[in-house]
C-alpha cells in the first residue's frame, strides 16, 4: 500500500542518517549539550539551551576563530538515557566537550564517562557537593561553572543568624540536594548561635504539605523551605494559608525563589529571603543588559539555569580567545579555563583548585517593584547583601572540611530538635 511504502522510505532515510558522521572541520568546536528536552523538566532544558544560544548568537557562532557546532541531546531526565546520549556524542559525533545535565543523578552518571573517555564535561547546573569535593580526584575532566548546593547557604546561615533569626524549622525535599542545602545553612547558622529546632523531609512528589505545615513547632521564628519538582509552588501558598507565614519569616533555597518559578508565585512570597550566586535584579550594567536582551528574545526574565549556561558559553569563548580559536585538547583547555577570571552577568567568576567557581553570593529578598525601567511592578529577588569571593568551602579550612562527611539527612545532627 502507498502509505506502507512511504513509511518504509522514511524508515530508510532515518536509518541511513544514523550512519553518516562527518569528521570535525579544521576550526570547528563541537559541543554536546545534554538537557531534559522531553518530560516534566522540559522548561528547564529550554532555559538552559536559550541561555547558551543567546551568547552564541550574539557572537555569530564564532568564538575567536572557532566555529561552534552545538548538538543538543535529550536526556529525558533519566540518567540511563543521558549516558547513552553522552556516549553517542563522544563516539559518533566526536564532540570536544559535553555540557549540561540537570539532576544530581545525571551529573553522577556523566562524570565517570568524562574520566573514562577523557572528554571534558562542564556541569553548568548539577550541584552535588562531592563532585568537586571528596570525589573530585575521580573526575579530572569534570569542571563546574554553576555552583555546589551548599555554597550559597554557608554565607546565608551566617547572615540569617546575624539578622535576627534565632530558631528555624526546615521543610526540604527528601533528596541529596535538599540535604546539602540544609546542611550548609545549618552549619554556619548554628556556629553563629542559631538553632535548627526541627527538620522535615517531605518526599519528592508531595503536593499537599499540610501534614508538615501543621506539625511546625510554634516557637520557631523562621521556616526554611526547599520544595522541589512540580508541586513546589504549593508549599509557600499553603504556608500562607495556614497563617504560619507571615507570622514566621519565610526563608529558603535560592533555587526555590529563582526567576524560573518566581513569576508563577503570588504575593505570599514577598519578603522571602534566599541566597544564590545569581539574581536577575543585580544592578550592574552587565546584568541589566543580559536581563533585557533575554527578556526581549524569550519573553521571560532569566533565572540561574539560563545565566549559568550563558556564562559557560562566555567562559569557553574566553578560552578560545587565548588559544586563537584552536581546540587545545581537554587537559590544556581545563587548565586555561580554571585560570580565568571573567565578568559574568552574575558578577566576577574565577575557579578554585577543585574546578568549582569562586563567585559572589547574593542574599536576596523578594520584593514587588519596577526594575530596569520597566513600567510594570513584578516580583524580583532584590539584592540585600553581596558576599564577594565565596568558594565552596566558605571560610572553613579545606582539609578540615573534607574530613567531615557530606551533608546528609542526619548530618549535621539536629542538636536542638527535641
Amino acid at each position: 500500500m502507498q502509505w506502507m511504502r512511504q513509511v518504509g522510505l522514511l524508515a530508510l532515510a532515518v536509518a541511513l542518517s544514523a550512519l553518516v558522521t562527518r569528521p570535525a572541520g579544521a576550526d570547528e568546536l563541537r559541543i554536546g549539550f545534554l538537557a531534559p528536552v522531553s518530560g516534566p523538566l522540559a522548561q528547564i532544558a529550554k532555559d538552559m539551551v536559550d541561555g547558551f544560544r543567546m551568547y552564541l548568537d550574539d557572537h555569530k557562532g564564532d568564538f575567536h576563530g572557532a566555529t561552534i557546532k552545538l548538538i543538543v541531546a535529550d536526556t529525558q531526565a533519566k540518567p540511563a538515557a543521558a549516558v547513552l546520549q553522552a556516549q553517542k556524542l563522544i563516539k559518533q559525533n566526536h564532540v570536544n566537550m559535553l555540557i549540561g545535565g540537570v539532576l544530581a543523578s545525571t551529573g553522577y552518571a556523566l562524570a565517570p564517562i568524562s574520566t573514562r573517555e577523557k572528554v571534558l564535561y562542564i556541569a553548568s547546573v548539577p550541584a552535588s557537593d562531592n563532585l568537586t569535593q571528596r570525589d573530585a580526584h575521580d573526575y579530572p575532566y569534570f569542571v563546574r561553572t554553576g555552583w555546589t548546593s551548599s555554597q550559597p547557604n554557608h554565607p546565608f546561615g551566617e547572615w540569617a543568624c546575624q539578622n535576627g533569626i534565632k530558631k528555624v524549622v526546615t521543610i526540604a525535599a527528601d533528596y541529596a540536594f535538599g540535604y546539602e542545602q540544609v546542611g550548609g545553612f545549618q552549619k554556619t547558622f548554628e556556629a553563629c548561635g542559631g538553632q535548627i529546632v526541627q527538620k522535615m523531609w517531605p518526599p519528592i512528589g508531595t503536593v499537599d504539605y499540610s501534614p508538615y505545615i501543621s506539625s511546625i513547632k510554634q516557637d520557631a521564628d523562621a521556616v526554611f523551605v526547599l520544595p522541589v519538582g512540580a508541586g513546589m509552588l504549593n508549599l509557600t501558598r499553603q504556608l500562607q494559608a495556614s497563617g504560619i507565614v507571615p507570622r514566621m519569616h519565610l526563608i529558603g533555597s535560592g533555587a526555590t525563589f529563582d526567576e524560573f518559578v518566581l513569576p508563577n508565585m503570588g504575593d505570599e512570597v514577598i519578603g522571602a529571603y534566599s541566597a544564590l550566586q545569581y539574581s536577575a535584579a543585580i544592578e550592574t550594567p552587565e546584568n541589566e543588559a543580559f536581563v533585557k536582551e533575554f527578556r526581549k528574545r524569550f519573553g521571560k526574565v532569566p533565572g540561574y539555569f539560563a545565566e549559568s549556561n550563558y556564562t559557560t558559553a562566555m567562559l569557553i569563548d574566553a578560552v578560545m580567545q587565548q588559544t586563537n580559536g584552536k581546540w587545545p585538547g581537554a587537559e590544556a583547555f581545563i587548565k586555561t579555563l580554571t585560570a580565568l577570571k571573567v565578568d559574568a552577568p552574575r558578577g566576577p567568576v574565577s575557579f578554585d583548585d577543585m574546578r568549582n567557581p569562586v563567585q559572589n553570593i547574593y542574599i536576596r529578598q523578594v520584593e514587588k517593584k519596577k526594575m530596569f525601567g520597566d513600567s510594570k511592578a513584578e516580583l524580583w529577588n532584590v539584592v540585600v547583601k553581596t558576599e564577594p569571593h565565596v568558594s565552596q568551602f566558605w571560610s572553613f579550612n579545606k582539609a578540615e572540611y573534607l574530613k567531615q562527611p557530606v551533608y546528609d539527612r542526619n548530618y549535621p545532627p539536629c542538636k536542638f530538635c527535641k
Partner: protein
Amino acid sequence: MGNGEKRPTMDTRFWLLQVFNGVSYGALLFLVGSGLSLIFGVMRMVNLAHGSFFLLGGYVALTALWGTGSWLLAGLAAAVVVGIIGMSMERIFMRRLGGDHLRQVLLTFGFVLLFQQGALDIWGGDNLFIKVPQVLNRSLVLGTVYLPLYRVFIVAVAAVIGIALWLVLDKTRAGAMVRATVDDAQMARGIGIDTSRVSMLTFGLGALLAGLGGMIGGGFLGVYPGLDFEILPLAFAVVIIGGMGSLGGAVIGAVVVGLVDNFGKVLFPQASYFTLYAPLVLLLAVKPTGLFGRE
C-alpha cells in the same frame, strides 16, 4: 527514627488540623476517584488516562480564565471540554475494541502519552496556578487554628457533587440504566438498554468529573506537567479501597486515602514512600476487590 523527626505534640489542635487536612484532601480525591469508579463500574475497565483528564481540566480552566477572567466560566469550560474529550475518546477509539478490556486499558495509556506531549506543547512546562477568587482566598481562624477557606470550599463542592451523583443514580431513569449496566451488562442489554450509549455517557461523565477536579485542584495543587502521573495512583487508591463501581465506596475510599496519607506523613515520616502503597498491597491481598467491591 532520624533526629528532627520526633512526633509533634498531639493536642486537640493537632488532631483537629490533621483530620481537617485529611478530609479536605480526600474531598479533592473523591472528585477524581468518583469518575474512575463509575467508569469501571459501567465499562469494567480502568481508565489510565484519568490523571490526564484531571490535568487537562486544569489547563483548559486556565485558558478560559485568561480569556474571560471568570472563575466560574473556567470551571464550566474545564468540565465540558474534558467531558467531550472523554466521550469522543470512547466513541471513536475505545468502541472499536469491542469488549476487550485489557486492550481498552492499554489504549488509554497511549492517550496519556499524546495528552502529555500535547499539553507541554500548548501550555509549556512551567508550574501554573489557578488564582482562587478573592472571596475564598482567606482562612477561617478558630483560636490558633487556621482553616483555609478554599479547602472548606473543596469539601463543600465534593459533597454537592456527591449528593447530585447519588440523586441522579438513585432517582432518575438514566441513573437506573447506569445501575443496571453496572450490575449486569448482558441482562441490561437484554431488557433493551443501549449499553454502548451508557458507556459513552459514563465515560464522558467520568472525564467531566476529573476535569472539574483538575480545575478545582488547580487552585490548591497547581497545574504542571507530571501532575497527571502523580494524581493517578491516588485515584486508583481511592477506587481500590472503596471498590470499583460503588459511589459510597468512593467517598469512603477518598476519605481513607486522604487521612492515611496525611497521618502517615506526620506520624511515620521515614515511611512516607510506603504509607500509600504498603497498605494498598495488604488490603488487596486480603480483599482483592477492595473494601466495598463487588464481583
